[in-house]
């Protein structure tokens, strides 16, 4: 065999020397990115989130080709997509359920970060980028839900935009500015469509920063200790192969919902066209907002409720300094682990409370859980860090030898 390089190889190298596109990808998520060898399947959810972002953008682009952002035509155009556009039903069901699955994946990704202390030094900025992505996702999902112009779209938009009116002095003008008028109307729908198309690309930009910030310290791992070079393996082919299997499992669940239960996560009322004169008895947001909706309604004062709701997310920005423990992985933190799982269950209960009318048990439970939500961050995080004696950490990923606790 000839050792001479083929013309294709030489052309490739000529191009790479001038614009190293392939090397860039290989360095980012390929064979030149060394990752700790002990990552478990919870580390799969980052690439799954990336997959869902691409899925949402692609299905969204095709939906936008057939959608009409006008209050008299939006609902009809969605029905036309469902009935007359080739595979329109599939694209729309993938997009509508895709939002839910994107949030499921991202919530697991966030809880993984919480459990394994991925927000701690030196990964604070990486964590911040993640919160910004989460905020942008929430804004995008909220505005996307308004676009079909069903009853829940309209009334959800009315309730959520009205939250800003709680702010003193500037509140009312802000709401008028958001609406583009004196109520949720055609201008609101137009600007929400425009922003719903824009924000996903902002998310793409934030993802670039998220991955950039990831590459400075490298991936955290289930032991939470620094991974020695000898304990690292190339991302490709090891984690690309592992993530491909995880993607298969994920898609089995996603497609089962898309094809067989496409409306199970949606509200039936959104199949009724928006009517400003008929207020639904029970306005609920999509499930992924329910815990925050419960926090909003747990507090009797509107302004404080709004601040608590936004505070519930913003507190994540200072989490790296609220947590006083230097041990990252909860596997070595016997007390924190208990409070973490309590926090997880607390989140689920908050979600349930958010889905119910704010009275009786759901209201009381919502208040207790709201209290624990903030108690977890502002009291448990610092205090447990000081009080707890962590279990001895291993000296390295491959060594079973334990070194003394710090």
């Amino acid at each position: 065999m000839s050792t001479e390089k083929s013309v294709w190889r030489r052309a490739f190298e000529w191009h790479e020397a001038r614009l190293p596109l392939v090397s860039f990808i290989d360095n980012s998520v390929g064979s030149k990115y060394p990752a700790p060898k002990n990552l478990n399947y919870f580390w799969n959810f980052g690439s799954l989130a990336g997959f869902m972002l691409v899925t949402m953008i692609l299905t969204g682009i095709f939906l936008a080709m057939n959608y009409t952002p006008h209050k008299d035509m939006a609902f009809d155009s969605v029905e036309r997509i469902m009935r007359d556009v080739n595979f329109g039903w599939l694209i729309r069901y993938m997009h509508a359920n895709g939002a839910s699955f994107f949030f499921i994946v991202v919530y697991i990704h966030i809880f993984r970060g919480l459990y394994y202390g991925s927000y701690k030094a030196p990964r604070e900025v990486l964590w911040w980028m993640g919160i910004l992505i989460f905020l942008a996702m929430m804004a995008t999902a909220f505005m996307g839900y308004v676009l079909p112009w069903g009853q829940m779209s309209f009334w959800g938009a009315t309730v959520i935009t009205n939250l800003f009116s709680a702010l003193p002095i500037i509140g009312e003008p802000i709401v008028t500015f958001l609406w583009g008028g004196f109520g949720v109307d055609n201008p609101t729908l137009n600007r929400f469509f425009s922003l719903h198309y824009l924000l996903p690309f902002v998310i793409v930009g934030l993802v670039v920063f998220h991955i950039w910030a990831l590459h400075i310290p490298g991936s955290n791992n289930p032991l939470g200790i620094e991974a020695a070079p000898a304990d690292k393996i190339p991302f490709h082919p090891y984690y690309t192969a592992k993530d491909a299997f995880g993607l298969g499992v994920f898609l089995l669940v996603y497609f089962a919902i898309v094809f067989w239960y496409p409306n199970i996560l949606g509200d039936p009322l959104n199949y009724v066209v928006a009517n400003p004169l008929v207020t639904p008895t029970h306005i609920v947001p999509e499930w992924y907002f329910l815990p925050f909706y419960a926090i909003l309604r747990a507090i009797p004062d509107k302004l404080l409720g709004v601040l608590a709701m936004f505070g519930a997310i913003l507190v994540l920005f200072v989490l790296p300094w609220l947590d006083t423990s230097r041990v990252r992985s909860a596997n070595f933190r016997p007390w924190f682990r208990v409070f973490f799982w309590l926090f997880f269950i607390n989140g689920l209960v908050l979600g349930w409370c958010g889905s119910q009318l704010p009275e009786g048990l759901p209201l009381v439970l919502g208040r207790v859980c709201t209290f624990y939500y903030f108690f977890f961050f502002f009291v448990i995080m610092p205090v447990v860090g000081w009080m707890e004696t962590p279990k001895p950490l291993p000296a390295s990923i491959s060594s079973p030898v334990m070194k003394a606790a710090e």
Partner: protein
Amino acid sequence: MKKILLAATAALALVPMSFGASASEKVEFPKEKWSFSGNFGKFDRMQLQRGLQVYKEVCASCHSLKYVAFRNLEALGYSEDQVKAFAAEYEFPTLDDEGSEIKRKGLPSDHFPSPYPNEKFARASNNGALPPDLSLMTKAREHGPDYVFHLLTGYDEPPQGMTVMDGMHYNKYFADGNFQIAMAKQINDDQVTYADGTKATADQISRDITAFLHWAAEPKLEVRNSTGLRVMIYMVIFTILAYFLKRRIWARLEK
């Protein structure tokens, strides 16, 4: 740790069941058997044709079906010519070459016309109530087709002590409206005479119209189910192969 995980999983399983609870949750909606339920569900063409007859003879005098075009009826097993003839029974306003308003015969591309010229007219004809469009009815209510079926058959004498408002009717499944519905009982035994000879009990008629309305709401149900099956088979094979590929690649590390 295991226990906590177990408890969390149990909580996770319970939570979605209570999502989206509304007033109609207070009423038990017995689950009915539909040919289109389940992952392999298919519409029963003869039932859809009977349902179309019920819509045309009973519902259409008050309810529109605006998202369904006559051309869609081919999915019910009718030929192109039958659909053309069906559409031609309807009239639609148009303009002639001089600009005068005239009527033309319906075409397969036309949608079912509304029985009323506008909402005000509809309300005036119905004691102030607006008969809703039925195209999406089975997807626009909790319990879907079961809701529609039970509502149609849920007319009864009001319980003792309950006064039903003037022009309203007691229906034990209409929880969202305090069990008082503007629509009177529409479906009785032998309300229609089926072309295919099926015995037209009130129960049968209600099932047929519900099936037809579910087709109207979700016309792509069959292709969705069958595509789903093929996609799932593909994904199972993909996932198994990906698993063994992963094992083989990771085996290199043990050397």
